[in-house]
């Protein structure tokens, strides 16, 4: 039996460590392995397709989202730009009211100055007006009579005393607007400013505003004369129209109606609409990918489960020779680690591979669709980064491998020293061990530092690539925006695209490496599943009934050779065991004793010759039938984790507790079992206080419970001390009564009373007979026997 040397590597509850990308081993035939894997996955085809389609939809939604986001940004940024068209139009319309011709026409209408004789008389005869004022007025009239220029006339009038003006400018009604004389005076005083379109320092009364400006509608907003006046008044304070910031601050002072027309317009309803669309997109993308991963989880785990089942069933179909050549650790690691790798990478990598490829291609498509210049910029700039990263990755690969190797060496050394600690100490090997340890430890430290540094570098480099792409897109995008080729939203969209484009690349790379190790793992799993099974049993046409077998066995010129050996282990074995006989097989190590038992149990197929039970060739009996006829107890104290009772009853049904106790009493283990905390229900596991001898007694008890016509004891008592052995022997003798038994033993004392002793050497029987006969012969047996007393 191959000893278990490779323990499966321990795994933490969360799988491997993060950040340490250990290079996966490569499959021998990657394509073949993947093809095979896909073939095995055939029954999950529809579900897988569903999962992949969902993943694709989810990815497509992810790609479309930035486009929507760009719309949203555009909508918001439209809330930043002043409506210059309206602004210009406003300026045009309002200043139109103040142009020369119109003023010429309207001002006299407003003022309605009437300097006729009546007025003159009225003023001059008015006692409320002082003499002084009257004089001034007369002078002014004289001056005016020579003048034609209106503005000069207005300026002279405006300089007249208040009392005069009141009389001159009577309140009138123009176009339904009542204009008081006070208002007229105010206008008169501002005429010069109005003509210069400089409204900043003056204050026109409302009535004047109403007459000067006429109300109009713009974009459905009514702009009142006073608002227009206010607008012009603020605009006239602008020093330089090119200063955006100044314009913005002036705009903030504008009347509501003007603001409404001129200020940036953001349609908040549109914003809401886009936002809702986006939320729906994000959520449905998430839900789709969630369903996709749920489906994938189901597939992956069910597939893994079916693989494990197949391996477990396969174990029992393989010929024993397989296990001679393969370590237990190897098979174990296929059941757990390899299957786990497959399941994990199916669960994570496959879906992510599909998603990321879609994201990658989709983002390229969307980029070119949106703007090819920016697309090229984004792709080129990230490509430069990726070339650099690939370079580093390739460089670092060897450090990762070195790290694994060095760590393996160190761990090997530690294992070796720890497990042989007593010898190491007793031979003063600690110093040497320390030197080796330090050397290996230093190497691990060095390769650790390098590989950790390099693997730690990946993430910052990725971030840099992202930023580089961002800046490139921003600059080129800004250039395009300034030239008016694209909107700002496009830049925002591209920033997301750059991320969507760079992320998948590294993810795809990661998925590919994990696909590599998956291929390698599935190769190993399928290699095991495809392993040649034991020959079929078609020719097994006969059946021996357990209760009717007499117990004769004949070995007829049996020849057997292990598959990988160059010479036969059993050469020409001929012997007959009669019903009820106790047959012992002795001989030096390697003589083929255990092999004979294996052949008898049909664990291996003999090459030539024949073994007959009651005259029936075992060729015509099924393995199960033969196993049924034999009880076998081996040197290996094979117990499993379970209660004492479970271990003794094993797979048999309808065994009462009394029967179990009975057997245990016979082999002398009953008392010990009773001292265990839970008696027969105590759980047995590896590191228990049950000694090797006690374990052996338990397996003997298990064997004795089987009521079969044949008994095989292969070194069954080698682990118990000789005194205990005697007890067992007695019990066993009782058991072997009437049964044909085969006993292999190291200790010759065990087999002295055998009916037939077969002395084997190099696959042959060199002597046979009972103890006395063989001793008398003074041959090989005698020599073997006597050697135990010599020193």
């Amino acid at each position, binding site marked *: 039996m191959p000893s278990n040397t490779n323990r499966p590597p321990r795994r933490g509850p969360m799988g491997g460590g993060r950040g340490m990308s250990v290079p996966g081993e490569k499959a021998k035939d990657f394509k073949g392995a993947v093809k095979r894997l896909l073939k095995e996955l055939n029954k999950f085809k529809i579900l897988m397709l569903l999962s992949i389609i969902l993943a694709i939809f989810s990815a497509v939604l992810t790609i479309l989202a930035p486009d929507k986001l760009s719309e949203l940004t555009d909508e918001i940024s439209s809330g930043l730009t002043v409506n210059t068209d309206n602004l210009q139009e406003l300026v045009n319309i309002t200043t139109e009211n103040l142009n020369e011709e119109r003023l010429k026409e309207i001002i006299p209408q407003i003022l309605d100055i009437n300097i006729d004789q009546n007025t003159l008389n009225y003023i001059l005869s008015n006692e409320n007006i002082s003499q002084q004022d009257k004089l001034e007025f007369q002078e002014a009239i004289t001056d005016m009579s020579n003048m034609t220029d209106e503005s000069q006339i207005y300026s002279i009038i405006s300089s007249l005393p208040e009392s005069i003006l009141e009389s001159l400018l009577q309140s009138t009604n123009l176009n339904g607007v009542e204009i008081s004389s006070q208002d007229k005076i105010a206008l008169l005083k501002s005429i010069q400013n109005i003509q210069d379109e400089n409204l900043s320092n003056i204050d026109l009364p409302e009535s004047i505003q109403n007459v000067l400006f006429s109300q109009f509608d713009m974009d459905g907003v009514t702009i009142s004369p006073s608002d227009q006046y206010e607008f012009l008044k603020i605009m006239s304070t602008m020093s330089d129209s090119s200063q955006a910031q100044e314009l913005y601050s002036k705009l903030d002072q504008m009347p509501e109606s003007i603001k409404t027309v001129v200020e940036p317009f953001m349609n908040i309803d549109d914003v809401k609409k886009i936002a809702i669309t986006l939320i729906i997109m994000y959520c449905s993308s998430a839900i789709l990918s969630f369903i996709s991963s749920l489906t994938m989880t189901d597939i992956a785990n069910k597939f893994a489960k079916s693989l494990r089942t197949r391996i477990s069933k396969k174990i029992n179909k393989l010929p024993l020779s397989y296990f001679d050549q393969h370590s237990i650790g190897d098979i174990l690691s296929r059941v757990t680690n390899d299957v786990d790798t497959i399941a994990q990478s199916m669960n994570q990598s496959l879906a992510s591979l599909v998603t990321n490829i879609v994201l990658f291609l989709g983002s390229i498509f969307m980029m070119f669709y949106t703007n090819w210049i920016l697309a090229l910029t984004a792709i080129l700039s990230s490509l430069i980064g990726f070339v650099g990263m690939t370079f580093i990755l390739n460089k670092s690969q060897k450090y990762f491998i070195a790290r694994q190797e060095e760590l393996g060496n160190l761990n090997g050394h530690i294992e070796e020293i720890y497990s042989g600690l007593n010898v190491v100490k007793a031979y003063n090997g600690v110093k040497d061990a320390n030197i080796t340890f330090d050397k290996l430890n230093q190497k691990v430290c060095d390769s650790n530092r390098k590989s950790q540094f390099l693997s730690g570098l990946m993430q910052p480099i990725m971030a840099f690539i992202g930023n580089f792409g961002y800046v490139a897109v921003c600059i080129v995008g800004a250039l395009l925006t300034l030239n008016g080729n694209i909107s700002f939203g496009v830049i925002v969209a591209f920033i997301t695209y750059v991320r969507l484009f760079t992320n998948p690349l590294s993810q795809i790379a990661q998925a590919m490496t994990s696909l590599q190790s998956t291929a390698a793992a599935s190769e190993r799993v399928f290699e095991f599943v495809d392993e040649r099974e034991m020959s079929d049993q078609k020719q097994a046409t006969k059946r021996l009934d357990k209760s009717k077998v007499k117990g004769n066995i004949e070995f007829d010129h049996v020849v057997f050779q292990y598959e990988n050996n160059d010479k036969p282990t059993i050469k020409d074995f001929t012997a007959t065991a009669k019903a009820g006989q106790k047959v012992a097989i002795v001989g030096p190590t390697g003589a083929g004793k255990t092999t004979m038992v294996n052949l008898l149990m049909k664990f291996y197929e003999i090459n030539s010759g024949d073994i007959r039970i009651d005259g029936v060739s075992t060729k015509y009996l099924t393995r199960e039938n033969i196993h049924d006829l034999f009880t076998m107890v081996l040197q290996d104290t094979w117990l499993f984790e379970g209660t004492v009772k479970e271990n003794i009853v094993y797979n048999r049904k309808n065994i009462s507790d009394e029967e179990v106790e009975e057997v245990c009493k016979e082999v002398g283990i009953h008392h010990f079992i009773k001292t265990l905390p839970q008696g027969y229900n105590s759980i047995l596991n590896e590191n228990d206080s049950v000694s090797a001898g006690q374990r052996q007694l338990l397996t003997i008890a298990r064997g004795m419970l089987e009521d079969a016509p044949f008994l095989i004891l292969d070194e069954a008592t080698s682990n118990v001390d000789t005194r205990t052995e005697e007890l067992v022997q007695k019990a066993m003798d009782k058991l072997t009564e009437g049964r044909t038994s085969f006993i292999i033993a190291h200790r010759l004392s065990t087999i002295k009373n055998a009916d037939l002793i077969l002395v084997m050497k190099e696959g042959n029987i060199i002597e046979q007979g009972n103890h006395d006969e063989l001793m008398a012969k003074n041959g090989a047996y005698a020599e073997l026997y006597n050697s*135990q007393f010599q020193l």
Partner: protein
Amino acid sequence: MFKLLKNLTKKDILLAIICIALIIGQVGLELKMPDYMSEITRLVQTEGSQMKDIVQNGAYMLACAFGSLIFAAFAGYFASSVSSNFSMRTRKKVFDKVANLSTQEVKQFSTSSLITRTTNDITQIEMLVSMGLQLMIKAPVTAVWAVLKILNKGWQWSLATGIAVIILLSVISILISIVMPRFKIVQKLIDRINGVTRENLTGIRVVRAFNAEEYQENKFEEVNNRLTRQQIFNQKTFSVLQPIMNVVMHILTLFIYIIGAYLIKEALMTDKLAIFSDMIVFSSYAMQVILSFLMLAMIFMMLPRAEVSADRINEVLDTDITIKSGKVKENKTGEVGTVEFKNVSFKYPDADEYLLKNISFKANKGDVVAFIGSTGSGKSTLINLVPRFYDATEGEVLVDGVNVKEYDSEFLFNKIGYVPQKAVMFNGTVTSNVAYGDNGKGEISLDKVKEAIKVAQATEFVEKMDDKYDEHIAQGGTNVSGGQKQRLSIARAIARDPEIYIFDDSFSALDYKTDYILRKELKKYTKDATTLIVAQRIGTIMNADKIIVLDEGKVAGIGTHKELLKSCDVYQQIALSQLSKEELENA
């Protein structure tokens, strides 16, 4: 954990501080970038901006990005230096400690557990230190710094970000609290799957002989079903995380934009643009904040595992060495090759019962002293007191007239050739295995090795090997058979030329004939040496000068074979169970 971190040297701490400074610098630069981003945004949005301003800001931003890359690279370098140096030293410490542990302490831990503690557990800690130095510092620094930067930019945005962080953290903590305990169950089930498979494999003959294939398969299937169910549950539960994370992050961005839209709408014309660029910047800061919280959450997921590892390592480091080397380095008494037990009793520290009680005997130079008794009678323990694998609880063990506790252990070991029951082979060659160790007499020559191999009856098979004495021996000696290993291990003791041989049931894997010849040759070769033998077979010890019969830790008889046959019941029983009366008398 912190206790273990005390192992950092001053240099490590200095490097760690530099590393922290670098990371703070890196974060600073990283967080500076959005400022340039906002400047670029503003420039692009404003009419009449100069292209050169945009390029300039872009260049600044790239400079920041590159600077942060450089800082990160250096920080990474220092962090990996610190972590790998730290793990190297810790590993060395554990290794040294284990090398000084007594057999009993090793047993308490179990060898395989000690191996895991020296390898996997330290790797676990190393990863935490390396990641911790970077992420554990970076995450909170980023979080705090970014929060400070965005705090005054608009409480509405901060509120949205805060809510997003809370949602994410609560989702993660709920998931962890659901899944974490179940991960442990999965681990147990995987062990169980392994166990059932191993059981089937190791017992393949028994399984087949009992026609129990179906029984095993059903057993496997039951565990397989449970494992699959549990795995599916765990993975499905956990697969909620990714979509939720995506949705929360995307929707947060969206909300920042929507809030921005409202703010811009309400704002004065003068403030609009500022708010817009704030919005863009905020959304990138908010991502930083969220990501750093996610990082923190991840570290917290790692911490408990590392904590367990740290505890396991500390357990080893804190173990007191019970067996300390003495000072005697020369023979004082003039006695050579004597071993004497004076009223020796032994029990494990926590045990109630004595394993050995009141053992007294003396072996003189050249004597062969044999120990026999049934399983559990204490023979191995007794013999292990001589090389001090255990120390006697009471009484004295004297070698050459000096208590073994007083010897410098190296000096004591040089007197002894110890052959264990289970042969130990080291990775190397036949020669390196036989010439293993140091006997204080200089290097062991090849001739000596060959001679030892010859005495140990190993010449025949060694010479049959392809490379003979240079044949490679795999770790644990997996490429040689049990009997061959045992003979090489005996040769190793012979090559040492010790004063005292200790054979702890070392002949068990040999057949009678080889056993016999080997003992005969050995006797010839080691005439002057004292030999202590533990054996099961009467034949092996019959001719010893002194046979000590042990029964339940007490001496049941001392004498020669013939004397004991007459006087000692226990011996008689053992002898009779192996040989017939006539044989015993004839011998």
